[in-house]
């Protein structure tokens, strides 16, 4: 159980708003680490802070022991962290093919193999290869976004609410994909859908009011109704 990414007392301000007020997380390698919490708790901001899109104002972030707190977004991405934002970030005027091509850092054998692999995982993308990203359905966009994140050698993927707005059958597909990806990549998953989170998550961290308040093994959380009620409003 090695720690791949470590956040220590991270604070983030957006304008005058103090969104993250002390985030402490240890992301475990090769597991699906789930971030849970109510709306507005700061889960998305945590991901964005890791990526450098909203720089932290205090605290530190270490990847493999290396300090990445003040690094630029593209540097962080190049260190092996992939990001699938809440709105998928699909380039609407580019085709599926072009979307993937932009994402690929190298166009060598390994990357192409990965592309084949991910296209097998998401056959829809092959069908709509030449279709503009903006014309895809919600589920297909999600698959494209995840394929993009996967196609490079990402050590870690930050995935933000992948099941949002998707039909249950599509959510199943997404979960299948994440389970596959988990074999070679560490996943940090933000999910509101507790059912999905509990089924694929290995460990959890609860964020409330911008602070990390609890963490542990997912199996433990499933049974703890008090905790679920208090921080997630369910159970």
């Amino acid at each position, binding site marked *: 159980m090695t720690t791949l990414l470590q956040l220590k007392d991270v604070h983030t301000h957006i304008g005058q708003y103090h969104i993250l007020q002390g985030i402490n997380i240890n992301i475990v390698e090769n597991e699906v680490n789930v971030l849970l919490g109510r709306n507005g708790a700061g889960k998305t901001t945590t991901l964005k802070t890791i*990526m450098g*899109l909203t720089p932290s104002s205090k605290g530190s972030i270490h990847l493999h022991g290396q300090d990445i707190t003040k690094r*630029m*977004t*593209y540097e962080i*991405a*190049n260190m092996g962290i992939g*990001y699938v*934002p809440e709105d998928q*970030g699909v*380039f*609407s*005027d*580019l085709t599926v093919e*072009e979307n993937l*091509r*932009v*994402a690929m*850092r190298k166009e060598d054998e390994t990357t192409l193999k990965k592309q084949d692999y991910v296209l097998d995982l998401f056959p829809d993308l092959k069908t709509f290869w030449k279709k503009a990203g903006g014309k895809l359905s919600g589920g297909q966009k999600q698959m494209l976004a995840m394929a*993009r994140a996967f196609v*490079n050698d990402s050590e870690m993927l930050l995935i933000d609410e992948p099941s949002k707005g998707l039909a249950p059958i599509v959510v199943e597909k997404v979960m299948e994909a994440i389970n596959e990806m988990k074999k070679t990549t560490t996943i940090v998953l933000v999910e509101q859908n507790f059912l999905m989170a509990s089924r694929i998550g290995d460990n959890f961290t609860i964020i409330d009011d911008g602070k990390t308040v609890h963490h542990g093994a997912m199996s433990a959380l499933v049974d703890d109704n008090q905790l679920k009620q208090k921080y997630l409003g369910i159970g």
Partner: protein
Amino acid sequence: MELIISLTINGLATGMLIFLLAAGVTLIFGLMDVLNFAHGGLFVWGAYTGIFAYAFTESFTIGIIIALLTGAILGFITEKLIITPVYGNHVQQILITLGLMIVLSECIKVVFGPNGIPVSVPPLLAGSWEVGNIIIIKYRIFIIVIGFIIYGLFHYILTRTKIGLIVRAGVMNKEMVQALGINIKRVFLYVFMFGAALAGLGGVLMAPYSGVIYAEMGMEYAILGFIVVVIGGMGSYSGTLLAAILVGLAGSFMAYYVPYLSLAVNMIIMVIVLVFRPQGLFTVVKG
């Protein structure tokens, strides 16, 4: 009939020159959300350095190369020193690029003197062909050809190459491009330099066409460039080409038939576009 052809060629040539200037403006705006009011300064500097290089070496090709280099270098300096410090603040950026425009124009007068300098067409491209009753001026055809080549280059780069893909993606979603590991700021710089080089090229090609170069031509052509960008749609290079051709033709025909309306006609088109289709005549999708 000869008249129509002559006016058309004239209009196309002018249009192409404006396209070279406007293409840079529209690309920079589409990607960086920066409206470069100093672009005319790049145009006039390209003209002067190109022509002086041509006069010095007697090679128009060298003049063209120098103009491209001048544009690129000035573009580099502009992006680093002027654009980056005020990135994100529209008002400051509009103000500061205008300031740079003034400085560039005035520096022309300091370096090259305040008077206009006459320029003649390079011998290889001078003269005209006679096709039946029609006289076709060679230099104008040359400009039109170059214009189309540049447009083709644009199109190829943007649709076929990786960097073009990145630029198009960046226009849609800068954040995501960064999250994919691409240094978008570096891309901005390249795009800016490319647009600036094009402006320089436009300047040096313009010189023999109009017969004279003078410091104020930067601003004059910049105004036409902006009109074209508005009409064609900010961020659309195809729109810019079509709009530039439209503006060039309109000006050319008006100058003959109703001279005092020739400047006004383009203004009027711009006003109509702004009222009915502010996103531009030729943009289909924001991109």
